[in-house]
């Protein structure tokens, strides 16, 4: 038996330990600046509130202001008929009715100079599912934005990917130019680029489509390029040896290999664009977000709840569909 001393690597190297310590110190310092202690304090306070030790908390106060008004969700639409142009009471829209309401207000009587209660009849046209219909129309617009944005990003990403793949780009200058375009597109968040697109294309879906399309073209361009670089070299070499030009090699030897992965990326981008399309309306990009922002600013929280529920349902359904499709493609 030889008693040789064997040097095994320690489980943690000194560098690892140092890096972890540095990260901890930085986190502790920055937690003061970003208000982490405040979060902890408020959460502690509200948990005391929940179990009944305390009878108020900052979180509870903040949220209770709107939470009472958020329920029930509003699905009917209610319009003062005086605000409807050419209102015809004999020809009401489908499934709608008229409701009279007595509106009480106080006015100064010019004769007595006293404040008197005045009752006024206001007639409302009520459509029981009217608001839901508006929300559905808006969410369809958001879905359309998502599909168009994805379509545009796929078209844009093809040249981006080709010229930013190391083994297909003609030279290193083109490579760096396209790589930086791809990075730049990804670097600008949609919510910011919508602001510029609104200036260029005006308020509405067009701005949203361009902002989402450009941003996701950056993503797809990067993903596609990396897959082209990593594709199996064998078949490509075989085609080169047969005298095929570069793009023929790409079409015949690379694309068939990477296609399932590409379709998975496209589904992911579509999924992501759908979620983002519900948000970009907040800054003028069209779709359901515009409606959401409008209702929030008018303090109509019941409407906001309806919108949030509809968004949730649509995103959930789409998530399920794309997950099924993706597993089918990758499992193939």
């Amino acid at each position, binding site marked *: 038996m030889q008693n040789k001393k064997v040097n095994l690597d320690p489980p943690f190297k000194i560098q690892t330990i140092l890096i972890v310590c540095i990260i901890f110190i930085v986190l502790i310092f920055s937690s003061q600046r970003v208000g982490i202690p405040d979060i902890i304090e408020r959460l502690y306070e509200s948990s005391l509130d929940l179990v009944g030790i305390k009878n108020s908390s900052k979180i509870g106060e903040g949220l209770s202001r709107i939470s009472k008004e958020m329920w029930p969700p509003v699905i009917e639409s209610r319009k003062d008929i005086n605000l409807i142009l050419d209102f015809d009471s004999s020809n009401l829209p489908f499934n709608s009715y008229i409701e009279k309401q007595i509106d009480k207000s106080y006015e100064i009587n010019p004769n007595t100079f006293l404040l008197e209660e005045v009752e006024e009849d206001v007639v409302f046209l009520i459509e029981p599912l009217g608001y839901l219909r508006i929300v559905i129309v808006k969410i369809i617009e958001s879905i359309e934005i998502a599909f168009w944005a994805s379509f545009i990003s796929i078209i844009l990403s093809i040249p981006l990917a080709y010229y930013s793949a190391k083994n297909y780009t003609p030279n290193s200058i083109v490579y760096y130019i396209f790589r930086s375009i791809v990075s730049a597109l990804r670097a600008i968040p949609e919510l910011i680029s919508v602001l510029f697109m609104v200036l260029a294309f005006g308020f509405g879906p067009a701005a949203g489509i361009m902002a989402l399309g450009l941003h996701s073209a950056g993503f797809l361009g990067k993903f596609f390029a990396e897959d082209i670089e990593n594709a*199996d070299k*064998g*078949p490509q*070499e*075989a*085609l*080169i*040896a*047969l*005298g*095929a030009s570069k*793009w*023929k090699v790409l*079409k*015949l*030897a690379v694309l*068939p*290999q990477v*296609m*399932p992965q590409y379709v998975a990326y496209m589904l992911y981008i579509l999924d992501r664009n759908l979620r983002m399309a519900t948000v970009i309306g907040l800054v003028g990009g069209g779709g359901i977000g515009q409606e959401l922002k409008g209702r929030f600013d008018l303090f109509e929280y019941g409407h906001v709840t309806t919108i949030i529920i509809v968004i949730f349902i649509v995103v959930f359904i789409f998530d399920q569909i794309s997950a099924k499709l993706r597993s089918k493609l990758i499992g193939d």
Partner: protein
Amino acid sequence: MSNILLSIKSAKKQYPGGINALDGVNISIHKNEIIAILGSSGAGKSTLIRSLLGLVKLDKGNIFFKSSTPIGNNYKLLRNSISTIYQNFNLVSRSSVLTNIILGKVSKVPSWRILFTIWPKTVQLKALSLLKEVGLQDINYSKRVENLSGGQQQRIGIARALIANPEIILADEPVSSLDPETAKEILKLLKETAKKNKISILCSLHQVEFAKSFADRIIGMSNGKIIFDKSANKLLKADLNKLYK
């Protein structure tokens, strides 16, 4: 020597790290000749074949194809008359059997047809007849090649090589990823089709007995140099000892 098709003269290639893959290699391939290259791993067999195709740039040396002037960087004519068979088949695994065979004719199919993958009917029929020639007539030709066995895939590799009507087939260890029984069949098929279609073959092999039954001429390579170059029936035990010492 008018019947020389392809030759490589004083070829040198050094890989980074100072490994001499080719060190002054001279080889000529004649019409209707089947040549086997023997040698252990790292002897330079693959580099030789890849350099003939222009997949590896030579440091020094010239390639001549049917003429006394070197081809330089113009591989087009050469690639149009050479087909290659690979150790790992190098088929497009997610494409169909028929498409993979048709790929052999890729340089002659117009671009728009490739863009929409609409193959000419004559090429498709040719591919089907080749499928029969390599003994795969019972196979479903719209099946993906990744579902086939190694032997079947190499048969498709041969069909892909044949569809371009080559004058030379270069084979880079075509049977080393196959079991001995299949390997024998594949080499037999390769030899028969070559003789039938008057094609020359340059084939690198590992197994001496395969080389003896397969080739007309055997070249031994070691450390980038040619150790012997003689006809198969004149091969001596001493030659092999020099090769695998």
